[in-house]
């Protein structure tokens, strides 16, 4: 990968020459093709879809539908299995409330982990409360890793849903999601995968891995905000209720209150969708596909190894996930609260995240609630890592107060 060329595609770098951006698990920068696609939509063809008889609407509808096919190719699923949502959180809520709430009975079990992002687990807390189902947690090692045997031991006939992130946004381990799906299916459970931290960073094989539901956001993969995807097996989407009802979701409705729903997946896309953003997500998919997802994963892994070795060598650092595969490095500086450390790094123009990263029950696993997280993407460089490591080495309680004087 030609990093110089790649970075020239992202205006954020030119416009923020000092900034070292290591918060890519939160959101990512956008390349020109994505920005231009938004501009193209809003300046040349800013009309609604699936409604108008006029040429422009027909043209935009066609491009919208083609984007669905593009996303399906990217995930390896059918285009009728791709639902455009407002983001990963909306997708995860649709699975929980549209599918889980419908099928779960008292005594059924939702199997998950204590490392889940709030958006992956809170919908299930609520659905469990509504249906009388219970939540069960897969045991995790002290480093947060999951042993497939422990997972298997948690599976029984009561488990109807496995809700799990393929890559935790705090720990960064890759779960063996294909094996986990197969084991879930053996007991008759469906698997709902939070792909927010995996789909942007590696090749996805929805069909090959035999997933049931997969949720992710556009903005974490170089696309615009406000749009996400739920991929779902067609027969499961047919059993799923829309989360929102209204225009676009129905084919007909009658005075007696009966509704004929639109076909899948259109029935889930109530109201006018963020059309320009969906088209720009298509541009992001093209951009990533041109680079190659395998190349992206390889480059990120190499950079992670480079950063991890340097981080592990620092005496003042506790490094929680040295063996993880994803570009997520979670650590603390000894004697410095995570927010103070991140605040110091900010004075060195380094953007990282501090806190509990929305995984508020993870502290029971790794023994600490608050950490600093540096998260990489394919456009980060070794030079940026070097400057980051230098700044972490200089981080102390004393230096974290420098900004006050």
């Amino acid at each position, binding site marked *: 990968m030609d990093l110089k060329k790649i970075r020239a595609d992202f205006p954020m770098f030119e416009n923020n020459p000092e900034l070292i951006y290591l918060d890519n698990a939160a959101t990512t920068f956008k390349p020109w093709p994505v920005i231009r696609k938004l501009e193209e939509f809003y300046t040349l063809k800013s009309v609604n879809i699936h409604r108008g008889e006029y040429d422009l609407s027909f043209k935009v509808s066609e491009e919208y539908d083609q984007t669905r096919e593009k996303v399906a190719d990217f995930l390896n699923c059918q285009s009728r299995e791709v639902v455009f949502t407002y983001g990963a959180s909306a997708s995860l809520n649709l699975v929980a409330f549209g599918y889980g709430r419908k099928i779960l009975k008292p005594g059924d079990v939702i199997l998950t982990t204590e490392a889940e992002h709030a958006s992956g687990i809170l919908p299930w807390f609520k659905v469990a409360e509504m249906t009388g189902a219970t939540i069960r947690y897969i045991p995790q090692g002290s480093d947060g890793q999951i042993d497939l045997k422990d997972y298997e031991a948690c599976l029984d006939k009561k488990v109807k849903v496995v809700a799990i992130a393929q890559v935790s946004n705090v720990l960064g381990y890759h779960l063996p999601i294909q094996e986990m799906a197969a084991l879930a299916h053996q007991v008759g459970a469906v698997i709902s995968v939070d792909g927010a931290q995996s789909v942007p960073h590696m090749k996805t094989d929805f069909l090959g891995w035999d997933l049931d539901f997969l949720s992710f956001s556009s903005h974490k993969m170089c696309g615009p905000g406000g749009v996400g995807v739920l991929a779902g097996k067609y027969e499961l989407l047919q059993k799923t209720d829309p989360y929102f009802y209204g225009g676009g979701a129905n084919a007909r409705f009658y005075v007696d209150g009966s509704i004929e729903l639109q076909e899948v997946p259109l029935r889930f896309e109530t109201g006018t969708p963020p059309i320009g953003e969906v088209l720009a997500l298509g541009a992001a998919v093209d951009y990533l596909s041109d680079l190659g997802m395998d190349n992206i994963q390889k480059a990120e892994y190499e950079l992670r190894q480079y950063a991890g070795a340097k981080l592990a060598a620092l005496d003042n650092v506790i490094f929680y996930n040295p063996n993880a595969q994803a570009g997520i490095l979670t650590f603390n500086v000894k004697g*410095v*609260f*995570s*927010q*103070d450390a991140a*605040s110091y790094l*900010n*004075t060195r123009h380094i953007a990282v995240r*501090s*806190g*509990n990263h929305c995984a508020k029950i993870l502290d029971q696993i790794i023994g600490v*609630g*608050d950490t600093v997280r540096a998260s990489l993407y394919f456009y980060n460089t070794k030079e940026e890592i070097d400057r980051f490591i230098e700044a972490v080495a200089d981080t102390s*309680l*004393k230096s*974290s*107060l420098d*900004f*006050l*004087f």
Partner: protein
Amino acid sequence: MSDILKDPEIMRQIIMDHYQYPHHHHLKEGDDVLSKHMSSASCIDDITVQLVLADDVISEVRFDGVGCAISTASTSIMTELLTGKTVDQAKDIIAQFFAMVDERDYDEEKLEEAVVFCNVSKQAARIKCATIGWQAVTEMLEEADEKGK
């Protein structure tokens, strides 16, 4: 100008001492204790501040919880400053502190050690850390006023 403000190393040491050995850093139970839990999604700090009012005087200020160096030190300094003050004096001191943080005119003498945070607005994201404990006391005093009416 307050002597503290003349020496950055003294200011730094005051903050580090209050962070590493915070004052009045344990909660108590009792019918006379007012409590306020402060936490938010945007900020990591998760602290509880307590007040004991005896007639018109703040006889105790306490706090506990998880917080960064700025919030812990600032709240610790505040507990020292407000203990033994009348409610009106406390409100005035708090108003001076918020004025300082907002870069308005304020009375240094009334803030004593709390002047170490005079530059906190240089990093806007940290203003909330420096004021979280002070905000808790403000809200408790307002609630006490409401009840007294």
